[in-house]
């Protein structure tokens, strides 16, 4: 794809959001699409962090959850409007992500997934146990952006947020930061030798992707209107990882493809019960991991040899 196409994609999403809201969708389909935006923001930003910068953090869902609970706190205790939280929480979570990075990035390689895993685990215990603050598993209710069950505004907002994500992604990948991130991913020692400020680049990647996760969490809170600790589980993290990996880790549109595939499967198999959904989704993800190691995008582009170079970021 050319650079121009990359810049058209955000417009496409904004237009789709507007169009769909005008057509009017069945609530179930609208639900599916709106929550898919949440997953797209998460899988997409995780892809930037893991696929492009090579930093496999397992705290990403934790950051989104922090964004969601932060939104609830601002709305309920602070009396702010939901719209304000959509601006404030990404910034706040970026700082949180930066802090986490300062701490977690002191370790390298496979220890990073482990320490972020520990942070997420500890946060999950806190959310459930500190029920006097978080309301525990009773769930924390907050007013939605739009009272009632009208989804059209959320479809528009979802389209805009998805578009925004792709704009940020284009800016990151095509810019200097993206090059430095990939240099670190491919060989940290060589990148270091070339004078790349490794720690600064990593922190920047952590903060930007954390901001996107925070935005996702805030969007989720404003849409769903009720939060519970179950939002932060290893299963959810696995879900996001599966999306990125199935689509193609380190590919610009990998997470998008992954979200489409997994959410569709989920939509069609959910009638069988949650266990079946999980078996099917994790089974497919596992097969992709084992046999199409670079994800669906890489596999498809190999079938179309002429396009290979264009699909690769």
């Amino acid at each position, binding site marked *: 794809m050319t650079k121009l196409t990359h810049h058209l994609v955000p417009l496409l999403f904004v237009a789709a959001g507007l169009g769909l809201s005008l057509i009017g969708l069945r609530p179930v389909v609208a639900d599916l699409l709106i929550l898919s935006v949440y997953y797209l923001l998460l899988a997409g930003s995780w892809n930037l962090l893991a696929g492009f910068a090579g930093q496999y953090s397992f705290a990403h869902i934790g950051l989104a959850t922090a964004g969601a609970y932060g939104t609830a706190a601002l709305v309920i205790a602070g009396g702010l409007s939901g719209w304000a939280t959509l601006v404030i929480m990404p910034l706040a979570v970026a700082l949180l992500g930066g802090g986490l990075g300062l701490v977690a990035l002191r370790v390298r390689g496979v220890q990073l997934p482990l320490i972020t895993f520990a942070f997420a685990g500890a946060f999950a215990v806190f959310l459930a146990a500190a029920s006097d603050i978080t309301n525990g598993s009773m769930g924390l209710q907050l007013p939605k952006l739009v009272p009632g069950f009208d989804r059209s505004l959320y479809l528009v907002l979802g389209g805009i947020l998805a578009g925004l994500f792709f704009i940020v992604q284009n800016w990151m990948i095509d810019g200097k930061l993206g090059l430095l991130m990939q240099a670190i991913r491919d060989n940290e020692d060589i990148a270091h030798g070339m004078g790349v400020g490794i720690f600064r680049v990593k922190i920047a990647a952590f903060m930007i992707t954390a901001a996107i996760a925070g935005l996702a969490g805030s969007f989720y809170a404003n849409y769903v209107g009720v939060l519970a600790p179950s939002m932060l589980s290893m299963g959810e993290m*696995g879900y996001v990882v599966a999306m990125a990996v199935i689509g193609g880790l380190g590919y610009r549109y990998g997470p998008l493809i992954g979200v489409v595939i997994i959410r569709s499967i989920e939509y069609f198999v959910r009638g069988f019960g949650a*266990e079946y959904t999980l078996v099917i989704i994790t089974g497919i993800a596992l097969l992709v991991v084992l046999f199409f190691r670079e994800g669906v995008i890489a596999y498809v582009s190999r079938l179309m040899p002429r396009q290979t170079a264009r699909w690769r970021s």
Partner: protein
Amino acid sequence: MTQLFVQSLLLGLLQGGLYALLAVGLSLVFGILRVVNFAHGEFAMLGSFAAVFVVDMLGLPVWTGLIAAAVAGAAIAYATNILVLRPIYLSRMRQKGEYTIIATFLLSQFLIAAATLSFGTTYRKLPGLWDQNLAIFDYIYLSGNRIVAFVAAIAMIALLFFIVYRTDIGRAWRALTQNPLGAAVVGIDVNRYANLAFLASGAFAGLAAALLAPLMFVFPASGVIALVKAFIVVIIGGLGSIRGTLFAGLLLGVVEVMCTVYIDTGYTDAYGFALMIAVLLFRPQGLFGRTGRAV
């Protein structure tokens, strides 16, 4: 109040022995292959189901359940290595370590879902070898099964120490852990010894789960708890260090019990995480790990 203190300390130590047994295989495999195995907990879970099957359904004696658990755990670990991990670590892809984490993570989610589907979510219990509550001088209270489990755990870890420091298999493992290149040039077949390490890892996890089963319960998601504990132990002790694993297991057991009793009962699982984070920050290689490893 000293009574509570002594009781807690003892409980923590007994619990810690089992944590160490759960974790020791994870550490062994990491040392040899640099693979962090997120499916380790499911080796334990499936092992304990095998024990339930043998003892409950077939009606065989309890000790056969322990053997069944070890065998089942070993078999699944072996299959995991051959089918999931070997293709990755023999490939030429970059960031293999991280990729094995993703693969085993998804495998673990799949095994939990599959087990839920096959076995249902009811809690099952395994009878123990010594199903009796003991009141020692009416001061210390313990179940016999806890003592059996601890003694067995320590015996198994002692056996592992013997294997590692006194046999050729152990020499090969240590060689692979200390210098994979050196091991290759002296002609040690990494595949063969990785398989053996996985067999041991699965057997120990399965056995640990079967020893824990009479104290707790058997159900599909039980592996998650086992994995988290094993992780914490391995990180604290230092990846690849068996001595460290034993020490860290006991430490985790004591810290969990003590903090639960003396700080707040609602945060039991958080204490382990906190300990793990602290160790990673101040001594990333773990208490017994060595600096400059290829981690």
